[in-house]
């Protein structure tokens, strides 16, 4: 009765599914397997040698300004947690509206996606980041000028090097019209930009976007985490105001399972090389901001990403869960779809009982944008308060004062990736000037 570690239950089921269907698996969500993550880090609270701040009373700043390098109107956020790009098409219009309203309630930004900007989303969002993607679906200069920032998407953590898919069952007439494609067909979003190749071209592209928007708004460059040191350096060289770094745990609406689980590197491993690049170029916390995403769930994750060098984080999967995705209240409906709360990831199929990843009018109507917005705002508030709690415990009057020195790692792998000591030692694997037996 001994189960195999190599051929575990999921692996066996997947082989059986492949043999039966002859087709590879596509799903939503992000990487599900365990990889070194923020859970493998701990903060060292203040003690004899550090001076903490008083609980929820003493001030601990959370504001962040993105786009201070070139933009005449940098994006000012009250909290260091933003909402990541997710398309109208992948998500319902109600879901997009709820995200915009929720972000606005707490003074942060939300982001369009691969499908263009809807009027509802623009109306609902005080601060809206407009994604500029390889497909250019719905891209037009009027919306570009209406944006508060522009995010050039080079890659996505769930699928660095991959394009997008939106299967026909989610291509409603409105989605099709916005994308200039026939309704009902399976749409492929390009994996390469159509009019630039490589960082030298990107520099010219960024300059064009600035000419068209009058040098007013910040321009971000988003990369999927694979070669973060070089990608960050090249993005800065190309003229980015902000680098968005999305680790492999980042979500997707529809991608091959093999791609999600086997391409790209964990968020934890991606941050230090990106920070290295920014520091070497003299722009870290000095002109170019770093936004990190991919598996951010809690205020502890927010604080850890910031301590490692991020200026802000983006969340995607977590806000969908806040909206009602994977809710136990939908257990019966998930069962009818052959899944269960906590496991639902068929976001590509358009049958989401929570009304989020669907274009079915009846299902979409289940999501009240006002209620959804309150839930999103609540989550964003909690993440921020949790990050402040940790920052105060570490004696910081602003979350940005958190630093790697505040962290230790629970595992050798996490210590090596995050470049912080293994807990209880002064050993940073890979750093020859440290040793396992050194002082704490």
């Amino acid at each position, binding site marked *: 009765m001994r189960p195999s570690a190599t051929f575990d239950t999921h692996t066996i089921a997947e082989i059986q599914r492949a043999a039966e269907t002859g087709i590879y698996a596509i799903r939503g969500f992000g990487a599900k397997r365990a990889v070194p993550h923020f859970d493998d880090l701990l903060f060292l609270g203040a003690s004899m040698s550090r001076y903490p701040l008083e609980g929820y009373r003493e001030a601990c700043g959370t504001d962040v300004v993105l786009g201070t390098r070139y933009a005449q109107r940098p994006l000012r956020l009250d909290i260091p947690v933003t909402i990541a790009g997710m398309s109208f098409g992948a998500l319902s219009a109600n879901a997009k509206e709820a995200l915009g309203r929720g972000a606005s309630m707490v003074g942060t930004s939300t982001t369009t996606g691969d499908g263009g900007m809807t009027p509802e989303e623009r109306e609902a969002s005080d601060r809206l980041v407009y994604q500029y993607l390889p497909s250019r679906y719905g891209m037009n200069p009027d919306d570009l000028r209406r944006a508060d920032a522009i995010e050039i998407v080079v890659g996505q953590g769930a699928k660095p090097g991959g394009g997008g898919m939106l299967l026909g069952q989610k291509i409603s007439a409105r989605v099709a019209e916005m994308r200039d494609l026939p309704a009902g067909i399976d749409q492929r979003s390009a994996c390469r930009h159509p009019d630039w190749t490589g960082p030298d071209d990107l520099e010219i592209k960024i*300059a*064009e976007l600035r000419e068209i928007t009058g*040098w007013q708004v910040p321009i971000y460059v988003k990369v999927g985490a694979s070669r973060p040191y070089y990608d960050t350096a090249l993005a800065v060289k190309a003229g980015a105001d902000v680098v968005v770094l999305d680790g492999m745990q980042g979500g997707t609406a529809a991608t091959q399972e093999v791609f999600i689980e086997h391409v790209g590197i964990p968020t934890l491993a991606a941050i230090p090389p990106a920070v290295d690049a920014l520091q070497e170029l003299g722009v870290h916390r000095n002109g170019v901001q770093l936004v990190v995403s991919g598996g951010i769930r809690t205020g502890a994750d927010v604080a850890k990403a910031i301590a490692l060098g991020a200026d802000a984080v983006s969340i995607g999967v977590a806000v969908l869960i806040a909206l009602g995705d994977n809710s136990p209240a939908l257990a019966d409906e998930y069962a009818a779809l052959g899944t269960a709360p906590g496991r639902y990831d068929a976001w590509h199929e358009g049958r989401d009982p929570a009304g989020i990843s669907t274009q079915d009018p009846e299902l979409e109507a289940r999501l009240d944008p006002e209620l959804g917005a309150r839930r999103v705002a609540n989550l964003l508030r909690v993440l921020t308060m949790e990050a402040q709690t940790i920052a105060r415990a570490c004696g910081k009057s602003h979350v940005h004062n958190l630093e790697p020195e505040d962290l230790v790692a629970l595992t050798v792998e996490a210590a090596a990736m995050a470049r912080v000591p293994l807990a209880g030692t002064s050993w940073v694997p890979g750093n020859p000037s440290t040793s396992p037996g050194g002082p704490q």
Partner: protein
Amino acid sequence: MSALDTPPVTTLDLDEQGLRAVNRTLQEAPDGARFAVTSPGGRHAIAAGLRSAIEVDVHGHAGYYCAGMNQAATVRVHGNVGVGVAENMMSGRVEVHGTAGQSAGATAHGGLLVVEGDAAARCGISLKGADIVVKGSVGHATGFMAQVGRIVIFGDAGPALGDSIYETRIYVRGAASDLGADCVAKEMRDEHRAELAALLAAAGAPDADPGDFRRYGSARTLYHWQAP
């Protein structure tokens, strides 16, 4: 409109004024204004982001993204252009009296792009509704993933023409010996000859015979995802 009604041409010299000032003047100009842009010197993003019905003549060679995202304006380049001329054009007209680099008219939603010479690779890539007429030949992957709109090629088409094409219609007078994935030759019916004749006239080639062109488009076998 008589000659007396024609607004005077304002000359904007890029060496003297710089790109930002010239583009700002063009972007804020009222309908009907006319401009001559001199000393382009291969600069990038010349006349990008225009949004009124003005006329602009660029005298010399332009770099990347000339007339990018054009709305309503008529831009004539008397020289060659680099990558992405009229990229994402929404409306209006862009003429290149020379040759064009890669990705000419990429993702353009509307308007007409006319290239008097050749256009390099990926002409009309991800086209979203605009019309492109190239009076010379085009490079590889022309019409790649092109969604809507028309591409007319007087000369030869490079390899992988129309790869992964959606509903764009491509008309070729010269050789098109290497078609990309899911791109096939299609029957020229009367409605196609009629729309092509209108396009040829609009592009200043009313004497070209639509009967000399062949039509290419999507076989639509990739419209529904399946295992490779």
